[in-house]
């Protein structure tokens, strides 16, 4: 659903077409790399909701509380690559803030590990 009325595909096009139509054929997010666990949180209100698609608005709604990229994809039931493109739109507009994993290429530091250890023991 692009929200633009350009229904150039039909059911025969199969399930793969729809996600790509949603992002108007784009397969590469334009902003920084988004990881599976990168946290996304919506700003209290979108800057210009009229110009957003249904999917963008769904993400804004979901991310009222912080969620990972993988969770957003799971809840929207669309492939990760599609969610990354949609998120990169929202990041560019300043409608969401993100937080990457502590240090992507390295393992987390000791204080963080201790906090995770205490947390897991406490569940």
């Amino acid at each position, binding site marked *: 659903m692009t929200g633009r009325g350009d229904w150039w595909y039909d059911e025969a096009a199969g399930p793969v077409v729809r996600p790509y139509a949603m992002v108007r054929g784009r397969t590469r997010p334009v902003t920084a790399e988004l990881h*599976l666990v990168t946290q996304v949180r919506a700003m209290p209100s979108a800057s210009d909701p009229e110009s957003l698609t249904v999917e963008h608005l769904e993400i804004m709604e979901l991310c009222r509380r912080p969620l990972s990229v993988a*969770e957003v994809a799971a809840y929207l039931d669309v*492939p990760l690559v599609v969610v990354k493109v949609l998120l990169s739109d929202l990041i560019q507009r300043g409608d969401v803030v993100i937080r990457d*994993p502590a240090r*992507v290429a390295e393992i987390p530091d*000791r204080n963080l*590990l201790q906090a995770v250890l205490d947390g897991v023991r406490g569940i």
Partner: protein
Amino acid sequence: MASVESERPGGELLVPTPVKIVIAGGFGTGKTTMVKSVSEIAPLHTEELLTEASVGVDDLAGVEGKTTTTVALDFGRITISPEIVLYLFGTPGQGRFWFMWDELAQGAIGAVVLVDTRRLDSSFPSIDFFERRDIPFIVAVNCFDDAHKYAVDEVRGALDLDKSIPVMLCDVRDRESSKSVLVGIIEHAMSRLDAMA
């Protein structure tokens, strides 16, 4: 679930730091069961669409034409605090999806390799993967009801594991048992950090 405060003092939105642990092992070793037993949410499922370019050419045997293929990921979540959230990712099938394993392992606290003693060899590729990349991992023997019970040392010997790699016995259906496995990998990752310091 821990409550999430909406703002830091000063009005800045609070966005937690994410960390992850990878749950690996051969098919049927209990990866999804383990995620389910400790996750605070029902395990979530997502898919990545792959084109041929994403997949090693040598591994494409049987995949004909320019089709896309999907790699499925199942994962769970444990909210540690408003500032930290832990994700548990079960690894997708071994072999064709190694590149996805690389993404999962990148920046992870470490990995748990689940082992079924009736099919030890099914977990060899997982062990090799983490050994080669020098990613902290522990081996957790999932004690299936109808499997012969082996001692930790027997399993260690059969898997030819370095003595620095912890081996634990567990029942991943049991939440406390799965928790102790998570504690095991976090402690192992911490002791490796200490050894490097």
